[in-house]
């Protein structure tokens, strides 16, 4: 294996990881602060991607599309929080799982009704469609590099927000002890709505940016949602830092598995077996990691509560 | 003197930087009603948690009838005859009062794995449950779901569960907590009636009750035993007076 290949695969892993982080950030805050399992988080990602695709197709501007998707999905998230999720916070986890599973079905069919069952294939913005050559002899898709840059910037911004601003302080207070935060006069109702809306907006950003790499289609949120859950359980529910570390770990393991395991297995098995077993084993690795974290450090790598 | 029924030696537990239980030494004779008192935060409940196996011991040992149970799992301690009640009532809310006690009786009979014979048809088991029901004075409430009981009744059931489970040694954590005077009086009578039949460690705030009932009393302050003895000894013990009344030593 050459160094260039290794670096390129690492970048691919980081890119996937950062996108997972955008999804996991909202999920972990909602989970940590409101103690709410939201399976419909993936649906917000899907809705964001569709909104982005629609605006991009209408205006031709990728930036406009991503922005509109973030705002639109944020508003949808806020509306959902006020109308539905508030009633679920104090319910059992079982009820939350079912209500949000129902939301997945509703969101999928609504999207299918509005946009049809065929996937929308977004194009990358013209300026980023080609490769860049940061180092002589090493070319990398400009778009993926941009995705990494945006992901990293958002991660940094979120970190600064959570650690250094008043809002973040309240969020952290809410995550570690909701009742205490209530007593201290934090308006948790508005805080929850705001956190939910921000989480939804981040989902939409991920949806918009992954649109051109994947496809905007019904059901796109379901598999990535489970990965996002894996991320936050590994990182520690409620912890932004944990979500970032977990996301990068999952992204790197998944990409490494897909990139290198088939090659290793091919020394032993024929290609059809190797290439099916490789990615599957990489996926298993992720869940093994999650199960062992749950077993040995049930609160995750970076627990938010004491 | 015979070998103690419960022997605690050098028992310690810390939570972070706080020492909740600090090298406690305590021995209960068989059939003794031993009261454990102390100001709030003295570590009484923690001690009960350690004895019942709900919390892990940091240092020291616990012996029950000569057997080392320091690291024995909670349910196994119960199997060895160690029963407890909770400060905050912990009953089976969805079960009727009778079913609560039947479950405890099932525990006493060590019957857990049957998959076929209906328990409800077991006359012996339910006779035992009804016996406890009468003993704790809840006969009229047999069919009521435990979740629907009044506070005092729930305290009675709480104790009933420990009794029906076949324990010989009872750890009672503030059985009268939050009770109205009349209810507390009934509970007191109930505990008095258990005297001699069980070895009892009674954690209680009601000093009046403690001094009337207890054979011996141990005083716990900041996790340490500062005195053990009969009611009179304790009443006169200078450290106890200082802890409770804030009296300065001359």
């Amino acid at each position, binding site marked *: 294996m050459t160094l260039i*290949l290794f670096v390129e695969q690492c970048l691919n892993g980081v890119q996937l990881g950062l996108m997972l982080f955008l999804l996991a950030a909202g999920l972990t805050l909602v989970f940590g602060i409101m103690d709410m399992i939201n399976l419909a988080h993936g649906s917000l990602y899907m809705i964001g991607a569709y909104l982005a695709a629609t605006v991009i197709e209408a205006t031709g501007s990728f930036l406009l599309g991503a922005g509109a998707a973030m705002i639109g999905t944020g508003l949808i998230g806020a509306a959902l929080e006020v109308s539905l999720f508030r009633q679920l916070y104090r319910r059992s986890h079982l009820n939350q799982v079912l209500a949000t599973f129902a939301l997945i079905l509703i969101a999928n069919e609504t999207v299918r009704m509005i946009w049809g069952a065929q996937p929308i294939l977004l194009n990358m913005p013209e300026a980023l469609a080609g490769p860049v050559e940061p180092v002589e002899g090493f070319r990398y898709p400009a778009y993926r590099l941009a995705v990494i840059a945006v992901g990293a910037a958002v991660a940094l911004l979120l970190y600064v927000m959570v650690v250094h601003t008043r809002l973040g302080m309240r969020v952290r207070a809410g995550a570690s002890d909701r009742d205490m935060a209530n007593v201290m006069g934090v308006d948790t109702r508005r805080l929850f709505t705001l956190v939910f809306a921000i989480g939804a907006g981040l989902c939409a950003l991920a949806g918009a940016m992954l649109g051109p790499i994947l496809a905007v289609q019904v059901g796109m949120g379901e598999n990535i949602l489970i990965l996002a859950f894996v991320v936050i359980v590994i990182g520690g529910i409620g912890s932004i830092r944990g979500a970032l570390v977990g996301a990068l770990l999952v992204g790197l393991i998944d*990409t490494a598995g897909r990139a290198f395991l088939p090659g290793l297995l091919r020394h032993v098995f024929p290609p059809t077996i190797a290439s099916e077993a490789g990615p599957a084993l990489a996926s298993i690795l992720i869940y093994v990691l999650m199960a062992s974290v749950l077993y040995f450090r049930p609160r995750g790598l970076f627990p938010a509560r004491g | 003197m015979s070998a103690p029924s419960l022997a605690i030696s050098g028992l310690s537990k810390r939570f972070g930087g706080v020492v909740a239980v600090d090298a406690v030494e305590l021995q209960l004779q068989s059939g003794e009603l031993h009261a454990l008192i102390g100001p709030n935060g003295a570590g009484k409940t923690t001690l009960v948690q350690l004895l019942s196996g709900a919390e892990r011991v940091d240092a020291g040992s616990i012996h029950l009838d000569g057997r080392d149970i320091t690291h024995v799992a909670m349910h196994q301690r119960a199997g060895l005859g160690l029963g407890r009640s909770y400060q905050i009532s912990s009953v089976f809310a969805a079960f009727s009062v009778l079913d609560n006690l039947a479950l405890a009786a099932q525990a006493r009979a060590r019957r857990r794995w049957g998959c076929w014979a209906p328990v409800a048809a077991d006359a012996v088991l339910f006779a035992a449950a009804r016996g406890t029901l009468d003993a704790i004075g809840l006969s009229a409430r047999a069919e009521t779901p435990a979740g629907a009981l009044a506070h005092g009744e729930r305290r009675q059931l709480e104790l009933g569960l420990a009794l029906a489970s076949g324990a010989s040694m009872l750890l009672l954590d503030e059985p009268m907590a939050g009770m109205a005077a009349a209810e507390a009086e009934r509970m007191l009578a109930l505990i008095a009636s258990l005297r001699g039949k069980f070895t009892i460690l009674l954690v209680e705030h009601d000093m009046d009750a403690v001094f009337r009932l207890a054979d011996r009393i141990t005083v716990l302050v900041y996790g340490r035993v500062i005195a053990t003895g009969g009611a009179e000894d304790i009443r006169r013990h200078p450290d106890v007076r200082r802890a409770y009344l804030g009296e300065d030593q001359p």
Partner: protein
Amino acid sequence: MTRLIAAALIALPLALPAAAADKVKIGFMSTLSGPGAALGVDMRDGFNLVVKNAGGKLGGLAAEVAVVDDEQKPDTARQAVERFTKRDRVDVITGVVFSNVLLPVLPSILESGTIFISPNTGPEDYAGDKCHPRFFVASWQNEDVPGAMGQKVQDLGKKNVFLIAPNYPGGRETLNGFKRYYKGGYADEVYTKLGQLDYAAEIADIRAKKPDAVFFFLPGGMGINFIKQYASAGLAKDIPLYTPGYSADEDTIKAVGEQLVGVLNSSQWAHDLDNPANKKFVADFQKEYGRLPTMYASQSYDAALMLDAAIKAVQGKVEDKDALAKALRTAKFDSVRGKFRLNNNNYPVQDYYLREVVKDASGRITNRTVGKIFSDHGDAFASKCKMG
């Protein structure tokens, strides 16, 4: 409660009308959602075009076409087939795009006595000794189209080819077909999960292995994403792409555009083939749906024509499945690909062309036929079939 359910169960079928004998019922099960949806949609439209042109009839009988989405999932397909064979009692089932959907449900279709006409996948399984008198393929055997491309890449003198396909029967057979005619060396042979859309890891692998050609078979949205990502990684200029026609057809061209120009691909059909049936088909299709047809549409159109001819031949007696099957075997119709006949295994014998994606005079990007690779080509498994 149990009573209610049972009552509902008994009441349900009573509400359904009984089947009449004066029409032909067709179950059209295809992939209409997900990354493979474009294929199923084109096939549905191609089939419907024939029915529409004939005034809602096939072979003179009123045609009742029930369209369902198999979601590219065998389990969903399985339930749809149960409904077709046991509830709706259709005469013919067609429409399936993917072999991994078809193979698990085909036994129960054939066991029920229903005729199946495949407008797309032509699996190896049923081409040889398991060939079946009620199973027809109106398209090609899975190895044929890629085989033609393998021949072409061989002729071009490539020495080190990178192969990539999804890991499902159709994908594996496609690469086998390529390898049957291409005799040079291989940089690697990679199978991805069916439905995978992000090819970053595989493209990095291609870059590192430096092949002199890449042969990819990734139907539908998978191929579209692969081509875009391949171009954005900057590989398109260095290492040429070759593909069976499925991944360089009009649906892909519409989505990818410029990045496909110059790509060579093989096909049994092209929209510029010069025969009257094809001219009518392309014109009608464009008029009806406002887009150029793909191979998928042409195959499905031909399947409908074939059925139309067979029903005519048995004079509308579709109840007699043996007679209908026999008529299908020898159906005479004007195929849009010109010369066409069924082999002893009910798979086609036909010509295979080389197409190139070009920008024509009007600036439109589309396929142009540039040559013929195989003539009168039958698949490699027909000899194992015992049917006469």
